[in-house]
């Protein structure tokens, strides 16, 4: 059983698409790794896998070993900097061409989810994060079924539910919270993503998708509210181009000045960047926010495994 050596399993869920499940999963993974934990990320969004792109490993191919698949290593554990290893598995790695559609009906998706849960050699992991597609359908039912059957109750820490603040999004996410209740998956907490946008030009904060909706929803359902994450275009730039985030002077997030002094570019005009994604992420304005939320997730997971 490939899940046996995993300490905690955390699901990332949302009823709504495009609220940032994959980017939240990515950032949780990076933050957990920064905290020194070994992390695995499993992407079960079969028809739209985004995780390979998020970690910049789109070209990677999965290696087959007797009896299973080996996940892709993003980086190994490094005791000098205190980071834990980070490994990823996604359907994206199995596709011959990146633009190809995966047109699968339910039963096929169910079989794939089961296979992903049982046939990937994760080895020893502190945390396995499972990124899901939007909705409450085949993938989710199969995932819940398989996990409740095969994982030990102390392993299954629960679900982090992601939403955006506007009412249209929370309406769908409320359904997801009900799904968790019905299937008996514990909700670790709600993250409100895309809550406000700080203009890089004048550092004015605008609530594009309003603000506060996630917190209200969490209170309605009596679940923990993990926090608000603003929109940071620099994070997207980091993901898409690999540039270390830089902020203009006077940028404040949660009252903390995070502006970076302009760096001297190299002689050839570009800043040489060979550092790992996880180190570059430390400079992102979202890193401190996720650090706090990750701490909450860790303590929730540890509580579950103790009880």
């Amino acid at each position, binding site marked *: 059983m490939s899940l046996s050596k995993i300490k905690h399993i955390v699901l990332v869920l949302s009823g709504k698409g495009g609220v940032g499940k994959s980017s939240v999963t990515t950032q949780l993974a990076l933050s957990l790794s920064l905290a020194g934990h070994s992390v695995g990320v499993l992407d079960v969004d079969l028809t739209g896998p985004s995780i390979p792109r998020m970690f910049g490993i789109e070209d990677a191919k999965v290696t087959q070993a007797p009896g299973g698949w080996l996940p892709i290593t993003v980086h190994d554990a490094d005791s000098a900097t205190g980071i834990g290893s980070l490994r990823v598995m996604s359907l994206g790695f*199995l596709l011959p061409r990146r633009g190809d559609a995966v047109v699968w*009906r339910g*039963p096929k998706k169910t079989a794939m989810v089961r296979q992903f849960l049982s046939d990937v050699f994760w080895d020893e992991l502190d945390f396995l994060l499972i990124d899901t597609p939007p909705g409450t359908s085949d993938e989710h039912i199969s995932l819940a079924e398989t996990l409740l059957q095969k994982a030990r109750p102390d392993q299954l820490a629960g679900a982090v539910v992601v939403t955006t603040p506007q009412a*249209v999004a929370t309406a*769908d996410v409320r359904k997801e919270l009900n799904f968790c209740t*019905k299937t008996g998956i514990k909700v670790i907490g709600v993250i409100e993503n895309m809550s406000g946008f700080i203009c890089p030009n004048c550092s004015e904060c605008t609530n594009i998708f309003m603000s506060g909706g996630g917190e209200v929803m969490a209170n309605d359902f009596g679940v923990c509210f993990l926090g608000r994450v603003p929109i940071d275009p620099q994070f997207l730039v980091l993901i*898409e181009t690999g540039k270390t985030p830089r902020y203009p002077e006077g940028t404040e997030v949660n009252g903390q000045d995070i502006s970076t002094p302009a760096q001297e570019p190299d002689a050839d005009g570009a800043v040489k960047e060979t550092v790992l994604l996880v180190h570059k992420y430390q400079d992102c304005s979202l890193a401190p926010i996720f650090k706090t939320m990750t701490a909450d997730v860790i303590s929730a997971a540890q509580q579950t495994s103790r009880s």
Partner: protein
Amino acid sequence: MAPSLEEPEAVQDVLANPLKQKPQLVAPEPEHCPGPESEQAGVADSCAGCPNQKICAAAPKGPDPDIPVITARLAGVRHKILILSGKGGVGKSTFTCLLAHAFATNPETTVGVMDTDICGPSIPKMLGVESETIHVSSAGWSPAWAMDNLAVMSIQFMLPNRDDAIIWRGPKKNGLIKQFLKDVEWGDLDFLLVDTPPGTSDEHLSVNTFLKESGIDGAVMVTTPQEVSLLDVRKEIDFCRKASIRILGLVENMSAFICPKCAHANEIFRATTGGGRALAVEMGIPFLGSVPLDPRIGMACDYGESFFDSFPDSPACVALKGVVRELAVQVGLDGKEIMPE
């Protein structure tokens, strides 16, 4: 057994297998099952030794007998347009509603909106009909009316509580979509807009299968500018090509955000690879336009109001009008007539 790294099932196979009632099986489908509803069921090589083999082989083969019923029901619908995107949260439902409002500004035009997003229906909220229920008469189910000439159908109308989760597997979702087409009294419509969930799965295959015979005008693709989103939309375009659904065009949503304080245009979802326009060129499909990110669109959706009526002068509204006109031209109508200046 070692997991297989075989190529994913060919799309053509899935598309060629018409949707039928799944036969009652005695054991769960094995992993290499060709699909109990497929032509190969019970006779494929992989069926040897399966306890279901006899049942599958005996199941009726051939096209779904309900398809002619659907075609008859939709005979009065002039244009059927799908709104698709591989990616979630890019504004499919928002765009569907905006399009519906735009078409419905002409009191002579009747518009229908069908929400096939079973697990996350947003259309009723956006059109302000969230608390409606479905009435059943001898003629069929009557849709909810958001305006005198705007009919809406969604699973949300059937839920006892607003927040109830719909925990359904594929076949059940297909059944409901079929009912939406077969049992709903759509009547004479100028446009039927079909909003879809993200992805390329059961819902999309069903809509395509059921509507094929009565004719789909085409699909509008919605995307946001960043590559993470384009990646999924590319898959959706591939799906349309393989299912031979005409692509009417690509709309880029959430293009730029104008800071209300300093009027600086921010590319929040930065188009590092050229955005929607470049993808449209790459794929050889019409580019219908980009719509800037305007918080007021989201607000109008939350309150179920028409953005066109509430903020007619905003840049987003001007851009949307352009998109609607372009789309009308693609469907073979006069853009100026549909969306006057």
